[in-house]
C-alpha cells in the first residue's frame, strides 16, 4: 500500500464506495526537463510563433510551439481570411505516422545518393524518354519541372482528376486565353451554376466563399438569388434558392437555351450569334425536363441583373463537357458578365492537360516521374495502369506509395508543405510564398530540392542547358540563381522572385520586398486583362444520355478526389449533407429507396459494364429518380492507416467515355444497375434526422422582409427570437425564478449567420486542431460517438425545386441559465464571471447528467481514453489538456485563447481585452471562410457581435426554454415566403417565377 499512488488508492476505495481517509505519498520517477543546448533566439518556451505560408493552395499562418507546428491560422494579411479544412489538416500530413521517412527503391529504404544515382543512370540512358506525370503546379516548381524535363528533351503532363482542364480548354477555344477565367460573384444578384461545387471543391473555393458572403449580405443593397441547374443537390447547391433538376447530360443544352433566351433579350453579335443560331429552347427544356417558363424567367433575371454563371463540375461533365463550359462562357458573354464577374486573365497559370493528353504525353516513357498524383486510383477503371507499367523506371514524388506501381519503383518523399520552400500562384493575382515553419521531421527533400540535386548529378548535369534565366545581381550577395546550379530550391525561388521584383519595376531593395513577402505570405501580381472577344466557336457535339440509372460522381467535400484521405480529421468530420464518415456512400432519391426497399441502414451494389462496388446508402431529397450519386475520395488500396481500406473507389465504374473536345474523362455518362447490397451499412449518419419537424431551430427570413427591414424591424419573418416570448399579461420579471447571473467585465458571445454558412466544416477541423479533440474512428462513430464539439446539422426544409437546406453549426451555447450546470453533483461545470459555461475536466465524475439536460446536445463524453498514435501526438496543443475516459467535454469558446489574450493585455496594463482582438479569437471563428461567425463581448454594445446579435435576423436557438444562450444565430434568407417563420419555415407556396427578382 505504501508504494501505491494516492490517486489509485482513492480510486480503489472510491470503487468500494467508502471515502478514504489515508493518503500515502509515494515517490514516482519525476518528469525530465530538457533545456536547449543553444537556445534559438526566435523561440520563447511557452509562447507561440507564427509563420506566413501557403498550404493546399490557401494562404495561412502556421502556429508553432517549441518548434512544432500545432495549428493553422487564417492569414490576416489576406482580405479573404479563412482556412480550408484541407489546409488545416496539412498538420496531419506533416505528422502522418506512416509517411515515408526517406527514399525507397523498390520498397526498400535507400539513401538519397543511391536513389538519385539509380534515377540518373536510367535518365542518362535515354534522356528523351523522360516523362513527367504530375499534378497541377505553378510558380517556381513549375518552371523547374518544365526546365528539367524539356532540358532533357522529354515531355511533361499535368493532370488533375477533378481539375479545371475542361474550363481551360473552353476558355482557349472561346477567347484564346491561356488560363481559365476567374469568377467573382461579390457583385452578382443572380448566381447560376451548372454543377460546379464552387463553394467547396471547385477551383478557388476560398475566394468564392468570401464572394458568396458578400453577394448574400444586405450591405450590398441586395441579396443574390442562386439557381442550381444540375441533377443532384450538392453541398453548394444546398444553398441554392432554386434547384432545376436536369436529366443528366442535358445541361449543355440548357445552358445554350439560356444563352439563347438572354441573347434574344439583350441582343448578340458575331460568334455568339452564330453559335446560338438554331438553338431550340423548347426542345432543350423538355429534354432536360425543366418547364420552359422557368428558363425564361431565369433568363430575364440574368439579362436584367448583374449575374454570374458557373460552368459544370465532375457531376455534369460528360462527353460534351467542353460544350457545356463553352455554352456557359457564351451565356456569360451575352449576359455581359465577362470583365465584371467572369474575368478572363492573361497571367499564365501552370499548364493543365486533360486525361487523354496526359496519357498520350507520358506514353512510351523510359523514366516516368509521377508527382503528387495517384493515377491508377483516379483514372477510370485504373486505365493509367498500362501506361505506367510500360515505363522502364517509375519515380514517385510522394509521402507514400500510390496504387498499382510496378516493381522497383523509386519513392522520393517530398515531406510536407510545412517543412519545405515553395511558391504557388493563387488565382490570377496572388503569388504566395511557402516557407518552412519547422525542421523536416525525416530525411525528406521537397520536389524542387530533389530535382535540383538530380540535375546536379554527374550524369545529368551535362545534359541540361544551364542558366535558363539571367539573374540581376540583387543586393543580398547575388546568392540566388534560377539555373540548375542553384544551391537549393530556396535560392532558386529567391532568384525567380528577385526577377519578378526587378520586372515589376519596384525600386525598393529586393531584400526588404522578400522579407515583406515572408511576413504577409506573398505578393500581389499585376493582372493583365485579355480581350474578351469570342472567337468562332465549334458546333456543339451530342450529349450521351443514359437510359436507366445514370452514375453521378462528386468529389468528397474534404477528401476532394481522394488526395486528402490520409488525414484523419478530414475522414473523421462528418460530410455535411450525408453525415457520413470513413467510407463511401451512394445517394439515391427516396422513391428509388422505396423501389429497392433500402434505407440508410443498408448498402447498395452499383454495377456498370466495367466493374461494381458496394456503398452505404444515403437517401437524399436532392436526388433524381433516374440517377445514383457516388462520392469519390475513399477506397484506397495503399496509403496510410487512415486512408487504406475504407469504402470503395467508384472510378472503377467509369468506362472509357471521354469528353470529345478536351479529351478529359467523361465522369458523367456511365449507365449502372443498382440493387440492395448484401451487407449492412457500417457507417451511421452523424447528423441524425435531416428534417427539423417544424421545430424552430434553423430559422429563415423572407428576402423581402430582410431587404426592406429597418435596423430594428420585427415584421413578417423577422422575429428577434431573443429570450422567452413575452406575454403582455405577465409581468416581465416573473419569467425567471432567479435573476440572471451578473457579468462584471465580459459576457462572451458568438453570432453565426446561417445564410452565409456553407457547411464547409472548416470550423469543425479548426476546433479539432485547437482543442485536441479525439479521433474516435469508425468503430465509435457506429455508436454515434463523434467527439467534435461542433455538430453540423443539415435540415431539408424545402420540397422539389426549392431545396432550402439549412446548415446549423451547434456548439455549446454558453447559456446564462444553463440546464447543465445546476445538475452537476460536483460543480465540475458552472457559470463563470465571463459568462462562460465552464467545464473542469478533472473534476468530472462522469454522471453525464449535464449532457442529458443540454437541450442542444452539445456535450461530448469520453467513452474511452482516446489517444493519438506516435507522431500524431506532436500536433497536440500544449495549452489544452487531453481528456481521459469517463470525462465530459464541450466547447469552451477556446478558453485557452481567451486566457492568453487576457494575460497579454494585463501584462501591458490593459485590463479589458479590446473588441478587435476578441472578434476572431476562437479557432472556429478565425477559420470560417465566409466570416459567418463573430465572437466578442456582449456586454459592450459597441462590439460587432453585440450589433449583429441585436439585428433583425438574430435569434437564440430554443429561446422558449429561456436558457439565455450566449450564441446568437442569424436566420437564413429564403426567396420563398416561409409559411410560419417562427416554426422552421421554408415550406408552403411553391417557388414561383417572380421570386427570381
Amino acid at each position, binding site marked *: 500500500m505504501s508504494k501505491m499512488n494516492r490517486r489509485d488508492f482513492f480510486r480503489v476505495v472510491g470503487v468500494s464506495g467508502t471515502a*478514504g481517509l489515508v493518503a500515502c505519498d509515494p515517490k514516482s520517477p519525476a518528469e525530465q526537463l530538457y533545456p536547449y543546448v543553444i537556445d534559438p533566439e526566435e523561440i520563447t518556451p511557452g509562447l507561440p510563433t507564427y509563420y506566413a505560408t501557403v498550404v493546399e493552395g490557401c494562404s495561412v499562418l502556421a502556429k508553432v510551439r517549441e518548434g512544432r507546428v500545432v495549428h493553422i491560422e487564417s492569414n490576416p494579411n489576406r482580405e479573404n481570411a479563412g482556412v480550408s479544412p484541407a489546409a488545416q489538416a496539412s498538420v496531419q500530413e506533416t505528422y502522418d505516422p506512416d509517411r515515408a521517412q526517406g527514399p525507397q527503391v523498390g520498397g526498400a529504404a535507400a539513401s538519397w545518393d543511391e536513389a538519385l544515382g539509380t534515377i540518373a543512370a536510367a535518365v542518362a540512358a535515354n534522356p528523351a524518354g523522360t516523362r513527367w506525370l504530375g499534378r497541377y503546379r505553378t510558380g517556381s516548381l513549375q518552371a523547374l519541372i518544365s526546365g528539367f524535363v524539356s532540358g532533357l528533351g522529354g515531355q511533361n503532363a499535368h493532370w488533375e482528376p477533378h481539375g479545371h482542364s475542361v474550363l481551360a480548354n473552353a476558355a482557349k477555344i472561346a477567347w484564346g486565353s491561356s488560363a481559365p477565367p476567374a469568377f467573382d460573384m461579390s457583385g452578382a444578384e443572380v448566381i447560376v451554376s451548372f454543377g460546379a461545387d464552387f463553394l467547396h471543391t471547385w477551383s478557388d473555393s476560398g475566394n468564392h466563399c468570401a464572394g458568396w458572403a458578400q453577394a448574400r449580405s444586405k450591405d450590398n443593397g441586395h441579396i443574390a438569388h442562386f439557381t442550381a441547374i444540375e441533377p443532384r443537390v450538392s453541398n453548394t447547391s444546398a444553398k441554392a434558392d432554386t434547384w432545376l433538376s436536369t436529366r443528366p447530360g442535358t445541361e449543355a443544352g440548357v445552358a445554350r437555351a439560356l444563352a439563347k433566351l438572354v441573347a434574344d433579350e439583350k441582343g448578340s453579335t458575331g460568334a455568339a450569334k452564330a453559335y446560338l443560331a438554331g438553338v431550340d429552347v423548347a426542345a432543350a427544356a423538355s429534354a432536360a425536363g425543366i418547364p420552359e417558363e422557368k428558363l425564361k424567367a431565369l433568363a430575364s433575371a440574368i439579362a436584367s441583373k448583374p449575374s454570374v454563371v458557373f460552368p459544370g463540375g465532375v457531376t455534369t461533365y460528360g462527353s460534351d463537357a467542353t460544350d457545356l463550359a463553352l455554352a456557359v462562357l457564351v451565356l456569360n458573354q451575352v449576359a455581359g458578365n465577362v470583365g465584371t464577374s467572369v474575368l478572363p486573365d492573361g497571367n499564365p497559370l501552370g499548364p493543365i492537360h486533360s486525361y487523354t493528353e496526359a496519357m498520350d504525353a507520358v506514353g512510351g516513357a523510359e523514366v516516368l516521374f509521377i508527382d503528387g498524383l495517384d493515377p491508377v486510383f483516379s483514372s477510370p477503371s485504373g486505365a493509367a495502369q498500362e501506361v505506367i507499367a510500360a515505363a522502364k523506371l517509375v519515380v514517385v514524388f510522394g509521402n507514400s506509395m500510390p496504387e498499382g506501381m510496378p516493381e522497383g519503383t523509386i519513392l522520393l518523399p517530398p515531406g510536407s508543405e510545412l517543412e519545405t520552400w515553395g511558391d504557388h500562384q493563387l488565382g490570377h493575382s496572388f503569388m504566395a510564398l511557402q516557407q518552412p515553419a519547422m525542421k523536416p521531421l525525416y530525411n525528406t527533400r521537397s520536389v524542387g530540392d530533389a530535382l535540383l540535386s538530380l540535375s546536379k548529378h554527374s550524369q545529368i548535369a551535362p545534359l541540361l542547358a544551364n542558366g535558363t534565366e539571367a539573374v540581376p545581381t540583387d543586393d543580398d550577395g547575388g546568392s540566388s540563381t534560377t539555373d540548375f546550379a542553384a544551391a537549393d530550391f530556396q535560392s532558386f525561388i529567391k532568384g525567380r522572385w528577385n526577377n519578378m521584383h526587378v520586372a515589376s519595376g519596384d525600386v525598393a531593395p529586393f531584400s526588404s520586398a522578400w522579407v515583406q513577402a515572408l511576413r504577409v505570405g506573398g505578393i500581389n501580381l499585376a493582372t493583365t486583362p485579355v480581350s474578351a472577344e469570342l472567337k468562332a466557336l465549334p458546333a456543339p457535339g451530342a450529349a450521351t444520355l443514359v437510359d436507366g440509372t445514370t452514375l453521378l460522381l462528386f468529389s468528397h467535400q474534404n477528401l476532394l478526389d481522394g488526395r486528402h484521405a490520409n488525414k484523419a480529421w478530414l475522414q473523421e468530420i462528418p460530410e455535411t449533407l450525408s453525415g457520413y464518415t470513413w467510407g463511401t456512400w451512394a445517394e439515391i432519391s427516396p422513391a428509388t429507396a422505396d423501389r429497392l426497399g433500402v434505407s440508410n441502414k443498408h448498402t447498395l451494389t452499383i454495377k456498370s459494364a466495367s466493374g461494381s462496388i458496394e456503398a452505404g446508402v444515403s437517401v437524399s431529397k436532392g436526388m433524381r429518380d433516374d440517377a445514383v450519386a457516388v462520392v469519390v475520395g475513399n477506397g484506397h488500396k495503399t496509403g496510410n492507416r487512415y486512408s487504406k481500406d475504407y469504402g470503395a473507389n467508384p472510378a472503377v465504374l467509369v468506362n472509357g467515355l471521354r469528353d470529345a473536345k478536351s479529351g478529359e474523362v467523361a465522369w458523367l455518362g456511365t449507365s449502372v444497375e443498382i440493387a440492395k447490397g448484401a451487407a449492412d451499412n457500417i457507417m451511421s449518419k452523424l447528423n441524425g434526422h435531416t428534417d427539423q419537424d417544424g421545430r424552430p431551430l434553423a430559422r429563415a427570413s423572407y428576402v423581402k422582409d430582410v431587404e426592406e427591414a429597418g435596423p430594428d424591424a420585427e415584421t413578417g419573418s423577422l422575429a428577434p427570437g431573443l429570450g422567452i416570448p413575452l406575454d403582455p399579461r405577465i409581468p416581465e420579471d416573473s419569467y425567471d425564478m432567479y435573476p440572471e447571473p451578473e457579468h462584471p467585465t465580459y459576457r462572451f458571445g458568438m453570432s453565426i449567420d446561417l445564410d452565409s454558412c456553407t457547411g464547409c466544416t472548416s470550423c469543425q477541423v479548426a476546433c479539432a486542431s485547437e482543442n485536441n479533440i479525439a479521433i474516435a474512428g469508425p468503430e465509435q462513430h457506429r455508436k*454515434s460517438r463523434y467527439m467534435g464539439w461542433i455538430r453540423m446539422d443539415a435540415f431539408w426544409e424545402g420540397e422539389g425545386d426549392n431545396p432550402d437546406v439549412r446548415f446549423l453549426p451547434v456548439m455549446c451555447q454558453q447559456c446564462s441559465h444553463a440546464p447543465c450546470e445546476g445538475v452537476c453533483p460536483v460543480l465540475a461545470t458552472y457559470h463563470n464571471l465571463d459568462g462562460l459555461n465552464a467545464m473542469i475536466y478533472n473534476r468530472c465524475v462522469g*454522471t453525464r447528467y449535464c449532457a442529458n*439536460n*443540454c437541450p442542444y446536445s452539445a456535450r461530448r463524453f469520453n467513452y474511452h481514453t482516446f489517444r493519438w498514435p506516435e507522431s500524431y501526438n506532436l500536433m497536440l496543443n500544449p495549452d489544452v489538456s487531453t481528456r481521459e475516459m469517463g470525462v465530459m467535454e464541450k466547447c469552451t469558446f477556446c478558453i485557452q485563447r481567451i486566457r492568453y489574450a487576457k494575460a497579454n493585455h494585463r501584462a501591458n496594463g490593459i485590463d479589458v481585452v479590446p473588441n478587435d482582438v476578441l472578434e476572431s479569437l476562437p479557432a472556429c471563428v478565425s477559420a470560417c471562410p465566409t466570416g459567418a461567425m463573430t465572437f466578442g463581448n456582449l456586454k459592450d454594445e459597441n462590439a460587432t457581435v453585440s450589433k449583429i446579435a441585436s439585428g433583425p435576423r438574430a435569434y437564440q436557438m430554443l429561446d422558449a426554454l429561456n436558457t439565455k444562450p450566449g450564441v446568437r444565430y442569424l436566420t437564413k434568407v429564403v426567396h420563398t415566403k416561409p409559411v410560419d417563420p417562427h416554426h422552421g419555415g421554408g415550406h408552403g407556396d411553391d417557388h414561383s417565377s417572380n421570386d427570381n427578382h
Partner: protein
Amino acid sequence: MSNLTYGQVTKDIIRPLFKPSLLHGLALVTAIACLSVGAYCWKLQLEQGLGVAGYEPPVMWGVYITTFVFWVGIGHAGTLISAILFLFRARWRTGVYRASEAMTIFAVLTAGLFPILHAGRCWYAYWLFPYPNQRQLWPNFKSPLVWDVFAISTYLTISAIFFYIGLIPDMAATRDKVKGFGKRVYGALCLGWRGTDNQWRHYMAAYGFFAALCTPLVISVHSVVSWDFAMSSTPGWHSTIFPPYFVAGAIFSGCAMVLTLLIPMRSLFKWEDYLTIWHFERLAQLCLLTGAILTYAYATEYFIAWYSDNPYEWGTFIYRPTGDYAWAFWLMVSCNCIFPLALWFKKVRTSLKWLFIISLIINVGMWFERFNIIATSLAHMFDPGAWVYYLPNRIEMGILVGSFGWFFMWFLLFVKVMPSVAIAEIKEGVRPPLKADEVTT
C-alpha cells in the same frame, strides 16, 4: 390461526434455518453464477471505459440508470408494508413484512451499486459526499444527484435499522432454540435481549417512531429519484406528475416482487399457516390499486403533453408508441396496464400460480417502464440533428443479470439464517394461553 400456540409458532418459523435443501442450494448457486457474469462485465468496463457499453450519445443514460430506478422501486414495497401498514394496523402485514423488509434492504443495496457502475470515473464517486478536503471543494447541493445520494443512503440506513430492531426479539428466540456456536452468535446479534417488560415498553415506542419516520421517507425517496428526471428540461421527463407516478409505480413493482419471492418461499418452507391465501389476496389488491394509479398516470402524461402544445414534449410522446421504441412502449403498457387487470377476478387473486405469473409480468413491465422513460426521451431530444436509436449491448445486459444474481444471493442467504417471518408479531396475532380457557373446557 387460532389453532396455533406460541410454542408451535416458534418451532415452525425456526425450523427451516440451517437445513440444506437442494432447491435452495441450486438457486443460490445460480445466483452466484449470474453475479460472476456481472462482475466480469464490470471489470471489462472499468478497464476499457464505459465505451464497452452500448451508449449512443446523446443517450447518456441507459440500462444502468433504468435498473437503478427499477431496484429502488422494488425497495419500496418492503418499507411500505412494514411501516405504513404498521401505522394503519393492517393485520395481514405481520406475515409478510419481515421477508419484504429483507427484500427492501437487498434491493436498495443492489440499486446503490448502479450509480457507481454508471459513473464514468466511479473511482471518484466519493466526491459526491460532503467531506472536508484541501481543495475546498464541496458537492453541489442543488443537484438532484446529490439529493439522490442523500435520499438513498438515508433510506438504506434507516430501513436497515428498522429491519434490525424488528429482528432483535426473534433472534433472541432463535438464540434460545439453537445450540452451541449458533447460540453465541445469535446471543451477540440480539444484543442480549431478554424481553423484559421494560425492554418491550421502549422497544414498542421506538418501533412506532421508526414506522413514523419511514413513512415519509418511503414517499420521499422515490420522489427524489423521480426528480432526477423531472428536474431536467428533457422532453418526456420535465413533468410535475413524476413523483406520485414514480411512487405508485414503485409500490406496484415492489408488491409484485414480494409475491414473486413469497410464493415459492411459502411452499419451500411449508408456511401455509403463516402466509395464507388471505395475505396474498391483500397483496394482489394492492397491486391492482397501484396498477390502476399507474395507468392513470400514463394517461395524464399524454394529456398534459398534448395540452401543453409544446412541440418537443408532444414529439417525444408521439415517438414513444410509434417510433423506434414502439416495441418497448407496448410491452410496458401490456405488462403494467393490461395483464394486471386479471387481478379483478377473485379466482386469479386466490390462485398462487396465476399470482406468480402476473407478478413476473409486472416486474418485466416495470423495468421496461423505466427503460422507456430514459431511452426514448434521450434518443429524441430537442435537436433532430442529434437523434439516435440506442439499444443495450451484452455488457449492459450482463451487468443487469449480475444485479439479479447479487440481489438473490443476499436474499437466499438471509432466509436460511434469519427467521423470515416475525415470530413475536405472529404471536401477537395468536390467542394467548389462558387458564380461564382451560377451566371452562
